[in-house]
């Protein structure tokens, strides 16, 4: 994608993050979180830089990055909407909510709308089981989802 930074720039910004966090015990996850926060995803070009700095193989870094659901291989949309699909939300109709949202946005889970406005992801529990069905929009929590709230969310991400 044209919006993604050049590999030399990725390497230098990655090195700065590593420098800051390398002293921690078990620094890899904090470093990966830092990189995802910096770029919005974990670029392939960052992996060899991490591997060298931590003296582990690229395969090991790749293995860790791909193990965890949080790390993205590509940038997300401008908004990220996480919809809870776990049991407590199921008991309050989260399946129907998911179906409605997918049709309103025209995308499925793990997809980004074509205009890049929003990425839709399932999440298995936000700890908001007292106000199911629940969701998280860019870190903001939303409970007791219904059609009215879905319409508000869709309007917000499209604006």
């Amino acid at each position, binding site marked *: 994608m044209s919006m993604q930074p050049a590999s030399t720039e990725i390497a230098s910004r990655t090195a700065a993050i590593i420098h800051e966090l390398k002293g921690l015990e078990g620094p890899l*996850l904090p470093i990966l979180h830092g990189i995802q926060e910096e770029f919005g995803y974990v670029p392939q070009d960052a992996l060899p830089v991490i591997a060298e700095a931590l003296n582990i193989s690229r395969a090991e870094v790749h293995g860790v990055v791909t193990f*965890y659901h949080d790390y993205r291989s590509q940038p997300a949309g401008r908004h990220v909407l996480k919809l809870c699909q776990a049991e407590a939300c*199921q*008991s309050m109709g989260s399946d129907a909510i998911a179906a409605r949202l997918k049709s309103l946005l025209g995308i499925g889970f793990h997809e980004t709308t074509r205009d890049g406005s929003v990425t839709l992801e399932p999440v298995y529990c936000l*700890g*908001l*089981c007292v106000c199911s069905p629940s969701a998280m929009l860019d870190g903001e*929590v939303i409970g007791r989802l219904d059609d009215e709230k879905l319409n508000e969310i869709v309007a917000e991400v499209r604006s």
Partner: protein
Amino acid sequence: MIPRIYIPGDSGALALGAEKVAKAVRAELAERGIEAKIVRNGSRGAYFLEPMVEVATANGRVAYGPVKPSDVKSLFDCGLLTGGHHKRWLGAPDKIPFLARQTRLTFARCGVTDPLSLDHYKAHGGLNGLQNAVAMTPADIVKQVTESGLRGRGGAGFPTGIKWKTVLDTSAERKYIVCNADEGDSGTFADRMIMEGDPFVLIEGMAIAGIATGATKGFIYIRSEYPHAVAVMQKAVEIARKAGVLGVNVLGSANSFDMEVRVGAGAYVCGEETALLDSLEGKRGQVRAKPPLPAHKGLFGKPTVINNVISLASVPVIMDKGAAFYKDFGMGRSRGTIPIQIAGNVKYPGLYEAAFGMTLGEIVDDIGGGTATGRPVKAVQVGGPLGAYFPRALFDTPFDYEAFAAKDGLIGHAGIVVFDDSADMLKQARFAMEFCAIESCGKCTPCRIGSTRGVEVLDRLAQNVEPEKQIALVTDLCNTMKFGSLCALGGFTPYPVMSALNHFPDDFRPTPVAEAAE
């Protein structure tokens, strides 16, 4: 004195609009030219009343709820700051029946105090436990925790004191305390509430664990789905460090203990203790074979206490009031209190801390008030995605580790998810297998392959393809997963599947299509 208004900053309250209420209150204060302090407290756990706004009056706290932003103007007109009457008026919060009937030991301060005020914490009994601990020998602290009967609140129910004793008795130049705050089970939110509402109690519990076992470093591993809890814990650790609660001289003693907050990356299996340790070390969150036990070789190969948030947060009250005080609550081998989390399709959802021993029926019907939809309760899942589905016929089961095990279930982290009669139990069983497949760490075959095969078998059953054969197959598969898996993910997935199958057999024998019936 400047009036104090309490508006929860708890994420459950925020999800119900607490931030908009706070904004409206600020605007109203400004417009009326009133000076007041807004405290963002935790939630008391009566979520059907959230956002619940409280004011401190001359006659004690007065609560209002659930408050909408549109109520704020009229609240001020009715004399909010003096506890005046309004349609949202609830009176003294500790007299609200849902709260008044509880036994709050671990959650005594949650929702009451300012989560980030160490002075508030101390004024409400905080640090008494640590104060006592620094004057004791490690062996005496371990003895007190052991005698309290406290068992791991994460789900396994292992005696906390015995775990600590193993670490104390293992000599090493470095030891760790790890707090498992990877609360991934649906229907559970007690860890989140305590971290957002009373973070110092967890810090205090960890510091006590450190002193008791000779560990000098702690980690709190919080799931990334809990950004609010992460933010509060980070601030609380900073404050505790500045105040000398953490550091080289804990509360001025010769004991050294410090800690760091670490954030997970969206892997459910990291709630399993050995997978969590690998994740902290910067590896894939894969389960380790035991032995060696983490108490012998844990984080970075060093002796490690790994406890759940609620286990650690229950330690300060034990060290403050004594083992006998804590042990006095409960039944059988389940001592003390348990924060029961009532969630899903339920009229009065929330956190209910009580002594062990209430029946499931009391919890669901009396405390929870039945379903939110008003339809009959069909099933309740107890203990998260790996817990069994209980039918109404088993509602006389008392809330106790052994009693639940005797009914082929588990209390787990004490979350209860209520389903009404529209629930399709075959679908729920399929989800249990699907979830296991998504979250399996991949290390052992029964879990990695078994879960995928389980989804396929249940799909064939749903399509009515040789149903009896599929039921025999899934039963056999569950047996393999239960006894052949490395950890509780593959090993316990059979609980929801088999309980759904055994208690709700009608849902697993799809009726023939209408045309065939003529």
